[in-house]
């Protein structure tokens, strides 16, 4: 019954009416992994989660839990627990009854239920709130209650649908860390849906980036951040987002914004491309590409400087002690290995 499960999605597709919601979804998630489904809203990540839960059926493809095909299994038969974005707590039941519900539904002996409820509640530190109704809890407490209800029956797969989106910023950071700890202590495969790239990067072992109903890239946060496979992934990850410059590639050099930029390798005959560079990878130096300072945003630890390179807006992250003023002319420098090169037509990494 218990123990983390390996999850595989093989060629899953889903249509809502005539609209394709998901296409060719292939995923292989290892047992015990903390895996994030990341993407903008409407990209299909929640639909994927719901297919895993059995709340929606796949039009094509298979869903495997270890070796077991659960594509058409009822939600209750899957040994899967889920925390909904709205928490979906039962408002007419106390916290205790809420947490006990999944156990009560399979006729667990009363003393066993009692023990499991207390244990789960302690784990998320709501042991003192068991007598309350969900309506009497704060947002953070409701969220913990939903977590406790999900972990009480020791599921093999744990699904979290934007669990932090209804919390305020400070609580979100705290809960993020706790979720990670909880995952470690439970040893259960966890899928985590979020549109917040920072959340996914910090919490997940691996992540899949969803765009318009398909998976653009799967990898560790480091891989996806350092080697985005396409322009869309590159643009979606990172805050502030990656800078893009339209360019022409000829051999080992690129021409962009009236400048000639050296490249790490030979890209062959002339072609249209887009150069990408992260705001943190650019340095302000004595020589390099000239740019006009347009706006300085102080963020405390560091600052974001908006610059004009020719007609293109470029954003640079600098140390807060760097003194630049609006209207200044500065020079930009960067290492060629920090440069991301994408094909202008296919939007894929070159």
């Amino acid at each position, binding site marked *: 019954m218990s123990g983390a499960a390996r999850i595989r999605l093989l060629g899953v597709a889903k249509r809502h009416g005539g609209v394709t919601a998901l296409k060719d979804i292939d995923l292989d998630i290892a047992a015990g992994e903390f895996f994030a489904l990341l993407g903008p809203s409407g990209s299909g990540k929640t639909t994927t989660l719901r297919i895993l*839960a*059995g*709340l929606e059926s796949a039009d094509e493809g298979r869903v495997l839990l270890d070796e077991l095909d659960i594509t058409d299994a*009822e*939600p*209750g*038969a*899957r040994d*899967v*627990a*889920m925390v*909904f*974005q*709205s*928490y*979906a*707590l*039962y*408002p*007419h039941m106390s916290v205790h009854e809420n947490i006990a*519900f*999944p156990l009560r*539904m*399979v006729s667990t002996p009363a003393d066993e239920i009692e023990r499991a409820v207390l244990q789960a509640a302690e784990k998320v530190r709501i042991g003192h709130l068991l007598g309350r109704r*969900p*309506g009497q809890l704060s*947002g953070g407490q*409701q969220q913990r209650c939903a977590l406790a*209800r999900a972990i009480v029956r020791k599921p093999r797969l744990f699904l979290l649908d934007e669990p932090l989106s*209804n919390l305020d910023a400070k609580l979100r950071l705290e809960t993020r860390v706790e979720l990670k700890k909880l995952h470690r202590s439970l040893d259960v495969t966890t899928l985590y849906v979020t549109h917040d790239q920072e959340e996914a990067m910090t919490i997940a072992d691996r992540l899949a980036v969803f765009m318009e109903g398909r998976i653009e890239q799967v990898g560790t946060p480091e891989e996806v951040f350092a080697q985005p496979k396409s322009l869309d992934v590159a643009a979606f990850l990172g805050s502030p987002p990656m800078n893009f410059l339209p360019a022409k590639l000829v051999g080992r050099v690129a021409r962009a914004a009236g400048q000639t930029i050296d490249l790490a390798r030979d890209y062959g005959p002339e072609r249209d491309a887009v150069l990408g560079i992260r705001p943190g990878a650019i340095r302000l130096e004595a020589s390099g590409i000239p740019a006009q300072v347009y706006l300085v945003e102080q963020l405390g630890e560091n600052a974001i400087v908006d610059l004009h390179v020719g007609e293109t807006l470029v954003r640079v992250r600098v140390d807060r002690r760097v003194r630049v003023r609006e209207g200044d002319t500065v020079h930009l420098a960067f290492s060629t290995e920090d440069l991301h090169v994408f094909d202008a037509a296919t939007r894929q990494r070159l």
Partner: protein
Amino acid sequence: MLGLAAGLLLLVWSFPVLWGFLTSLKSERDVLAYPPVLVFAPTLANYRDVLFGATTILPNLLSSLIVSVSTTAVTMLLAIPAAYALARLELPAKRATGFYVLATQMLPPVGLVIPYFLMLRGLGWLDTYHGMVLLYITAALPFAIWLMVSYFEEIPREMEEAALLDRAGRLRALWHVVLPQARGGIAVTVVFVFLNAWNEFLFAVVLAGNTVRPVTVAMFNFISVEQTQWARLAAAAIVAMAPVILLGLFAQKHIVKGLTVGAVKGGGRR
């Protein structure tokens, strides 16, 4: 100011009831006094007459009770699953069904008397309990379904999905999660259905009246060509009102609970 306005409204609303109550305590002579007397010697004679006298309405109260309780029970038993299905499932003719249900409520009942008469006569069910209950259900069921669909639709779908994942299955999700939250709506519907059946007069007087003689029909007897026994009629009316008021008071608790119970923010994306 607001209190005054509320008080005035309450007075307007309760005036007929109060007047009826006062009348029920008067002798027939005081009832007919002109100008009306406000100070009179109250008597319980009318109540004694309508409850235990020759013109007792107790059997009729029982008759009303049988018809109304049966109608309400059968209606709710059918309406709850039907309304739930209409609220949740993607049915092909959902809109059309909804409109049809509403349309049945727009027919003037008097236009249905003859067809109902013919149908009940054909079945040999004139002046029978099952005949009257069946007839009342035809009116109450669409109304009850229509009323409850909106209550079910208000309950977030994620609530049931959570129950399904918690291994409840559809029926137990309905029983443990949906119905408790629809309690307010169910209470409102029960009150309306019961009230309509209890107060129904037209069909009862035309299609029944001997074996099945509900209190509304019995009260009609106090009005005859020669005279109207206003005081007894008023006493009978007050007695007939009592069960409905009791039901209302009992249901109120659930109605108020039904309104406050869903106080969890979030609610989910629809």
